[in-house]
């Protein structure tokens, strides 16, 4: 059997070989980075190298990087630390790890392209003088729509607000400069950019009081207690370095993606691509095939050996209609037929051919199925 085609990079990306190599050697090492003996010091050094590499990915200083267990924890940590005593203002298209950690937040709407409505944000900030925390993601995980974070930040700062930016999907897919974005904190995840699962970071660029989510041991300058996950941190460092080098190649994927979308639209003229009017991540495509439930599409594609997703990969097992598409004003019926195709570092032209063929077959089959059903007599009562 040929290798299944994996086009779900926004859920998780396969690890890059150099990352695996670095991690397996780190896993074979023993040492608690807080120990003062040589084993401990070696672990410490390897963590600090990784911290530099992760910082470089977003043009931050190494001491601004706080390692966490992943993007979800980083988002939660930021909201808890920055949001204390502040009103929370978050965009409607944020990831659940922001939305669910920001209970009672005021929601900033987005336009039909999935971009945050800046004038609405301005009005919200002007309406209420209490200090706020504004959370807007850099790029959306479902549609790839890139948000005007720099403008959000300058607007927010002008009103005395702090800004958190979830850059989990954006990192490694576009150039990021945390200073230019102006965000006070930035959340990152390793496994979306070819690094291991179980490690992420919060980049603390602004001057923010330390307020950890969990305590004890005082690691990460008091921001995050617990024995450092040395091997995963090492893997994150290597992945961050490679991702930074590979950004031009990643940008080239936009062409591959656009061509793929054109072919999909040729195969099914009724299909709808979302957020195509906005600037998008180069690897992400969110596309609806009216009349065929997203789950049906995804299952059929899986049987044909192509992995894509319906919505984001979370817990429930139920595929709830996307809150992102709803916020963009997409009709509920149409949101239920949207799938996400996301490309990455190992994607080949063959992968795309395979997807396009499988999609065309899927559409043709369900058309004839529906045609049969429509033509068959009603079942006996």
């Amino acid at each position, binding site marked *: 059997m040929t290798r299944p085609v994996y086009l779900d990079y926004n859920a998780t990306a*396969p690890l890059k070989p150099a990352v695996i190599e670095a991690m397996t050697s780190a896993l074979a090492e023993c040492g608690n980075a807080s120990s003062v*003996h*040589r084993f401990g010091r070696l672990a410490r050094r390897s963590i600090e190298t990784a911290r530099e590499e992760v910082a470089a990915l977003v043009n931050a200083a190494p001491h601004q990087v706080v390692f966490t*267990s992943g993007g979800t924890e980083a988002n939660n940590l930021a909201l808890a630390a920055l949001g204390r005593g502040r009103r929370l203002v978050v965009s409607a298209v944020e990831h659940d790890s*922001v939305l669910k950690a920001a209970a009672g937040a005021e929601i900033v709407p987005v336009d039909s392209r999935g971009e945050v409505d800046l004038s609405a944000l301005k009005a919200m900030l002007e309406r209420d003088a209490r200090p706020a925390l504004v959370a807007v993601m850099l790029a959306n995980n479902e549609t790839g729509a890139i948000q005007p974070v720099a403008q959000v930040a300058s607007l927010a700062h002008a009103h005395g607000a702090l800004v958190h930016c979830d850059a989990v999907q954006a990192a490694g897919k576009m150039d990021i400069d945390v200073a230019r974005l102006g965000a006070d904190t930035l959340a990152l995840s390793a496994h979306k950019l070819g690094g291991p699962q179980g490690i992420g970071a919060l980049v603390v660029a602004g001057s923010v009081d330390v307020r950890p989510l969990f*305590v004890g*041991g005082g690691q990460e300058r008091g921001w995050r207690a617990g024995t450092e996950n040395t091997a995963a941190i090492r893997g994150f460092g290597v992945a961050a370095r490679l991702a930074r080098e590979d950004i031009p190649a990643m940008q080239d994927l936009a062409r591959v993606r656009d061509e793929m979308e054109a072919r999909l639209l040729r195969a099914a003229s009724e299909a709808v691509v979302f957020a195509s009017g906005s600037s998008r991540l180069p690897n992400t495509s969110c596309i609806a095939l009216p009349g065929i439930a997203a789950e049906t599409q995804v299952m059929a594609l899986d049987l044909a050996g192509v992995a894509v997703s319906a919505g984001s990969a*979370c*817990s429930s097992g139920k595929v709830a209609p996307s809150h992102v598409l709803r916020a963009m004003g997409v009709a509920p019926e149409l949101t239920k037929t949207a799938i996400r195709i996301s490309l990455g570092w190992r994607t080949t032209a063959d992968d795309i051919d395979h997807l396009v063929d499988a999609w065309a077959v899927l559409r043709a089959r369900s058309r004839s199925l529906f045609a049969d059903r429509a033509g068959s007599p009603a079942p006996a009562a």
Partner: protein
Amino acid sequence: MTAMTTTKDAETARGSNAPKRPVYLDYQATTPMDPRVLEAMMPYFLEKFGNPHSRNHTHGWEAEEGVETARKQVADLIGADEREIVFTSGATESNNLAISGVANFYKDKKNHIITLVTEHKCVLDTCRHLELQGFEVTYLPVQQDGLLDLELLKKTITDKTVVVSVMGAHNEIGVLQPLKEIGEICRARGVFFHTDCAQAFGKIPLDVNEMKIDLMSISGHKIYGPKGIGALYVRRRPRVRLVPLIHGGGQERGFRSGTLPAPLCVGLGAAAEIAKREMAQDTERVGKLRDRFYKRITDRLPEVYLNGDLKNRLASNLNLSFAYVEGEGLMMGIKDLSVSSGSACTSASLEPSYVLRALGVTEDLAHTSLRIGFGRFTTEDEVDYAADRIIEAVQKLRNMSPLWEMAQEGIDIKSIKWAAH
């Protein structure tokens, strides 16, 4: 590759009694990975790289299957149901989640927490944070041997007590608390029992039902598994409810959001499975090494004090204080041994261990304490070498010490009235 060959290779590489690398005797800080664990993890770094929460394709299912097998392996080691295991990033997170989670969930009815002064820093820090939020915390003292006085616990529980948190095996002194008895007391009074078993899980037999444990913190890297993964056992019957620390996609039945690191979960599961199979033989072998080391030291050095009870203790732990030497000097003298003075989290500071102080160990002796941790890959040669190096260093320091000289001459140092400078 098996553990045995690795150990032998390491021995050959080192030569018999002259290690090239420092001898690692700090198994309570962290343990080397068992090669069998790494082997189990590898496929999840390679072809089974999927997101375990991706519900609609093969890549996701494969990763999920690995995670669920691991969950079962962890549950099996403590007599739990796999639905009672919540994966976390490690025991620090588990301790935080257990204590603040349960305290916050039941805060309308109860507001009192009981723990011990000798608990791990992350338990104590969590309790201090809860005090700031208005909870009441009683920090119970321990007896000279490090053990909790059960009568004292009984007397301290009130109608307002929500949870009792007592460590299963101590990270510094290896002392094992009477979990079954504590569990009885808590259950009888309708109080939740949380135990930090970062050091006990995989080392001593644990059964959550027999011991009436409601919440148990578990760590991967203390049992030859990977760092960055742990678990919290959360009892289902009678059900324990928690306010989560991390919100988001609702993974781990809502207790802990975030993509599970499938390879790390698999690693913890494999480590638990090996521990279950090999616990008895590991304990016996490691205990023999520990006893050999202790005998060698005490045969040749007088005035060595064991901190913590010897009988109720991890087979893998010793905590010794050497009278008439100076702590930093001792550490400098044994640079090629990786041992710890106090727990790793605080060892970068040179304060005497709060744990030893709680046992009534004098400041002088607390300063000269060494924690020596033995484990699955420790060899007899390493043990002998390490003991000899310590003996040598202590003798050298004592030979330079006027206090030692006086003690040898029978002068009671405490009786000396020192002149003011």
